[in-house]
């Protein structure tokens, strides 16, 4: 029994691998119910008015390592925005976010026939982290005089009427660390009082619950589950909903290992004395 309390970790790795692989290959349905934090973002964006020129700023503050977890929520929210014909401005605070943001924006725009410059634009990346947020909050053109393609902001339909972050009807930051949600709250929302929603990896989500309760964050998309909930709300299940299958089975396998470990531990204690 003592040996069972100390299984070679490679057996655990194998079990986790199988528990993730099999559900990816075998399809089955799992119901996804939207939580209040996710529904809050959906409701806010749904309430925006394209005719009034409402613009959504999306900050893609994540890199390739967290792409799988955060790309689905970015796409889901973008689909919502384009479906409502809202204008979208993309930006990133990370150099590795540029390629990711461009790909996501162009892929989703193509689904809805959205035109660059008229319906959405991408500002790109500039160094400075939270200081860039401050610059954008004071004067957008002080931070970005042109978009990522070198076109002056005054020449683009989307950005012509925008002066600063305060002119954005909604700001959504999707981040995996630093710079990210906390910086957008401290240096953006607190100073310029725009409506801010956030998306983050599941492990970071508890960090932002205090900001939800204080009203500094409008809503929160936490990890792949949050993305799956948003996909369910917009009625377009995609990668996140599919990802719930391996995630669910993986969680169950880890729980079983924990329970097994405890059973073995108590059995070995009883067998060997205290």
């Amino acid at each position, binding site marked *: 029994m003592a040996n069972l309390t100390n299984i070679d970790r490679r057996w655990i790795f194998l079990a986790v691998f199988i528990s993730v692989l099999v559900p990816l290959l075998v399809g089955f349905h799992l119901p996804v119910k939207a939580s209040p934090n996710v529904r809050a973002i959906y409701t806010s964006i749904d309430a925006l008015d394209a005719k009034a020129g409402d613009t959504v700023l999306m900050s893609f503050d994540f890199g390739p390592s967290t792409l799988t977890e955060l790309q689905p929520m970015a796409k889901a929210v973008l689909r919502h925005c384009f479906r409502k014909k809202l204008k979208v401005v993309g930006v990133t605070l990370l150099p590795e976010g540029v390629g990711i943001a461009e790909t996501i924006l162009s892929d989703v725009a193509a689904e809805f026939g959205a035109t660059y410059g008229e319906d959405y634009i991408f500002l790109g990346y500039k160094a400075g982290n939270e200081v860039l947020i401050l610059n954008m909050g004071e004067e957008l053109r002080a931070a970005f005089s042109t978009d990522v393609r070198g076109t002056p902001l005054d020449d683009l339909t989307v950005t012509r009427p925008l002066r600063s972050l305060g002119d954005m009807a909604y700001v959504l930051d999707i981040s995996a660390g630093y710079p990210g949600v906390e910086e957008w709250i401290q240096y953006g929302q607190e100073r310029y009082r725009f409506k801010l929603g956030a998306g983050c990896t599941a*492990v970071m989500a508890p960090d932002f619950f205090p900001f939800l309760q204080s009203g500094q964050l409008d809503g929160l998309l936490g990890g792949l589950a949050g993305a799956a909930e948003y996909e369910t709300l917009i009625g377009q299940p995609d990668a996140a909903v599919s990802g719930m299958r391996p995630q669910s089975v993986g969680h169950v396998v880890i729980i079983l290992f924990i329970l097994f470990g405890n059973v073995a531990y108590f059995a070995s204690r009883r067998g060997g004395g205290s």
Partner: protein
Amino acid sequence: MHHLSHLIAAIATLLLILTTPAFGSDEWFDTEALDNFLTAIAFSILVLVYISLARRRDLTIRRLGGLEALDEALGRATEMGKPVLFIHGLHDMNSVSTIAAVNVLSQLARRAAEFGTHLMVANRYPIVMSVSQEVVKEAFADAGRPDAYNEQDIFFAAADQFSYAATLDGLIVREEPAANIMMGYFYAESLLLAETGATTGAIQIAGTDAYTQLPFFITTCDYTLMGEELYAASAYLSRDPKLLGSLKAQDIGKAAITALLIVGTFLATFGISLPFLGAS
């Protein structure tokens, strides 16, 4: 005391100017932030007062297991002839947790020099690396071992989060340090680093104010400094009166906030609203 007197004079002048009806306007002072401003001033005065008082009074600090274990970790590394690896977190020098980590590094480097232990320091930012090099160099000089200082032992590992984790995992597996000391703000790579270190049998001491990473460090490390224990570490190790005084002020600030929370909870529970607090 001269810092305190300067602060009080500056604040008094500023308040006088900004609240004068002829001068004051929303352009010159954001009145919505007045409560924030007054709280900040009050706490600032408290910190400076206690820093001044610290030289005249002995201030005690409770035992922090993780820091007591530093000497044990260094001793073990020296006996085994293996290095100690100090890993900075993922924030730059403008982060308080990085400053706290540098303070811990300074004390650790001094003791490593005294013990004759090989110390390696991994950094994610060039500025943090430069500061760490200066700190370690000065610590080795103070310990009388300037010859033992090797600039290449304090290195820039990688700028990307998971490249940083991959570099350090490789280093841990190849060099098998006897002790891994992780101080600063960490993200998802915390478990990658700590679990890899656990497989090599190293003593692991972590200190972070990253709330979400605490569970991973607690499960994989021998000792964990949680939240502001990291900030207290430098005061604990150096016993510097200024740092101890600052810590005392923080504790009083926390006590004041706790008292306000209790009062506020009582008021809210019984539906009592006070107009000057803007309560609804």
